[in-house]
């Protein structure tokens, strides 16, 4: 089985699914000839032609709005927004149109589509290239939000997203695009949306993280072995709708929770997870839940980026804090 990184795994998923389903159209800035600034769509235009792999003008609302129109007609558009920071111009189309069309037309008109967005920090990118807007999306009705954390996961989740009858925002943690290599099967396999992944079983503390933060948590877990602290690590994978049961199940067991995310702390997804645990496992909690997150500030430029991002050290500290409460 080939060992692929996440870029290659997504590319493979796109390629295979485009072979299978000729309703798929890939569109976005530089996705064609260039193959995407991260090479995720490399070779697709050569293979499928420029009708199905389209370099668009520089217009994010336009890309997403026309993708919606295509989906209404029965195509399965996969739009790429080049970087997280350029998703904001699409929020109007996503919130006011894409997420509502099925509901407002009582199921008559639907727009299944995928919006792929490389997201998150850690690559020393310029401003506006390191954002984590997942909480905003999770607050938006009518769309699903998926975030893979490994190459294998990326392929299986993307295939499910493309086949989903609902619009899906697919956030790709660009920091680990090439950082992890693992076996990724050729051919068809899917990972269901709405189901969390048990990354690692453990008994002491439940740590919930997604995207590039899973790797940070795994590194922290490694360190914590020395202290004989066993982490149970859960990756929600689909953050909207969240797999609440898996989280609650784990919390009932451990009674202690740390949540890790890159987005600013206030009103981040961590807050919602805390609220859910409060509602459904209140009596199981043996200590306050800790959040290890970005800060309520713009992501700093590269010289200061390390201040911002959650790292194993901060995760270890949080775990020890919930252990010693």
């Amino acid at each position: 089985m080939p060992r692929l990184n996440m870029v290659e795994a997504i590319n493979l998923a796109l390629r295979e699914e485009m072979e299978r389903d000729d309703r798929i159209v890939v569109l976005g800035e530089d996705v064609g000839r260039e193959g995407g600034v991260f090479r995720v769509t490399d070779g697709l235009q050569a293979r499928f032609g420029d009708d199905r792999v389209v370099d668009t003008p520089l217009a994010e609302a336009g890309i997403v709005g026309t993708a919606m129109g295509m989906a209404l007609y029965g195509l399965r558009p996969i739009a790429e927004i080049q970087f997280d920071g350029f998703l904001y111009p699409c929020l109007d189309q996503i919130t006011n149109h894409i997420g509502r069309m099925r509901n407002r037309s009582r199921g008559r008109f639907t727009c299944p589509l995928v919006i792929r967005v490389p997201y998150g920090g850690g690559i020393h990118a310029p401003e506006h290239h390191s954002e984590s807007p997942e909480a905003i999306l999770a607050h938006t009705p009518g769309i699903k939000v998926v975030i893979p954390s490994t190459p294998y996961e990326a392929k299986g989740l993307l295939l499910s997203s493309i086949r989903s009858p609902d619009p899906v925002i697919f956030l790709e943690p660009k920091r680990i695009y090439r950082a992890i290599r693992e076996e990724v099967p050729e051919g068809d396999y899917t990972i269901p949306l709405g189901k969390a992944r048990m990354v690692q079983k453990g008994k002491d503390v439940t740590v919930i993280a997604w995207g590039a933060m899973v790797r940070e948590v795994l590194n922290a877990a490694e360190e914590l072995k020395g202290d004989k602290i066993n982490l149970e690590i859960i990756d929600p994978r689909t953050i909207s709708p969240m797999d609440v049961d898996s989280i609650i199940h784990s919390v009932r067991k451990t009674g202690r929770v740390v949540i890790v995310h890159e987005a600013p702390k206030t009103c981040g997804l961590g807050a919602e997870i805390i609220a859910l645990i409060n509602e459904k496992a209140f009596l199981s909690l043996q200590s306050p839940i800790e959040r290890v997150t970005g800060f309520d500030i713009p992501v700093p430029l590269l010289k200061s980026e390390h201040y911002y991002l959650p790292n194993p050290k901060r995760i270890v500290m949080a775990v020890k804090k919930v252990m010693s409460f």
Partner: protein
Amino acid sequence: MSLFDDYHPLKGKMFQILKPDGTLHLDMKPPVSDQEIFNLYQKMVFIRLADQKALMLQRQGRMGTYAPVWGQEACQVGSASVLRKGDWVFPAFRELGASLMMGVPLKTIYLYWMGNEEGSRAPDGINMMPVSIPVGTHPLHAVGTAWAAKIKGDKIVTVSYFGDGATSKGDFHEAMNLAGVFKVPTIFFCQNNQFAISVPRKIQTASETIAQKAVAYGVDGIQVDGNDLFAVYAATKEAVDKARSGGGATLIEGVTYRFGPHTTADDPTKYRREEEIEPWKALDPLVRLRLYLKGRGLWNDEVEKQVTEKAQNEIDQAVKEAEAVSTPDVEDIFKYVYAEMTPQLQEQMEYLKGTL
């Protein structure tokens, strides 16, 4: 030479066939037969009456906020009547006329304004999209749908309707530009009714015409007299034929006037005087068509009475049917959000039921 060369927007000419006095311009003729004109006239009467009925229903508290089409009947009838089965229409919120032309039952349209989501569901087979409240955002969808058809090799066209105000929005620009680059078979139909709520056309843009905005995108643009059914029909027909045969998009500016308030929530006396409206009254699209038909011996008071009565009966029937529809079930607000209800929505629905 095509209509779009003859009336290139920078030539400063507005395309008109039927003069306000009901006579034709020299060397010009109506684009359809007398019989067809009479049919379209009937539609326009129906639309005007259905519109007035909606205003009344709102005043009586039987309908929510409503945006009247009054005055813009020729724009909508002239353009939508050119379309074929399989074509798609993307309306703004003032398109009662276009909706009816597409075959959406009046009952359905009323239901929407009465606050029932069922009113946004056009019957199967009729590609009339729900109203788009966020101004200027839906032409993008029309572009996407037309583009998809082009990719699939289907010979359909799409039309988006929007106002003069909508042309100031960024999404309108992105839609026009994308349509230009990809030669998408879509018609941008701007009903320039001189106002965006209180904001007059001249504050909306310093561009002399809306039609000339097409120049920015390498697509055809044309300004037509939006109160002249024939001109609207002919221009749309040419644009639709061009689109269907691979010639790409067109921006049509229909110059018209909103006789009524912006919506039932609006008080136009705040921003326009009665005298401003007067000259436009003389340009009423129905009046003009009536004059024409009369000249052709096809219209008199008796005919009008018949047309009106027939329309009124149908309209009353639609009101009755719409009002007979019961309040949506609590499940309805949850069950269409996703293809399958999420556990979250299941839980929220159960909770809500327990509180009613």
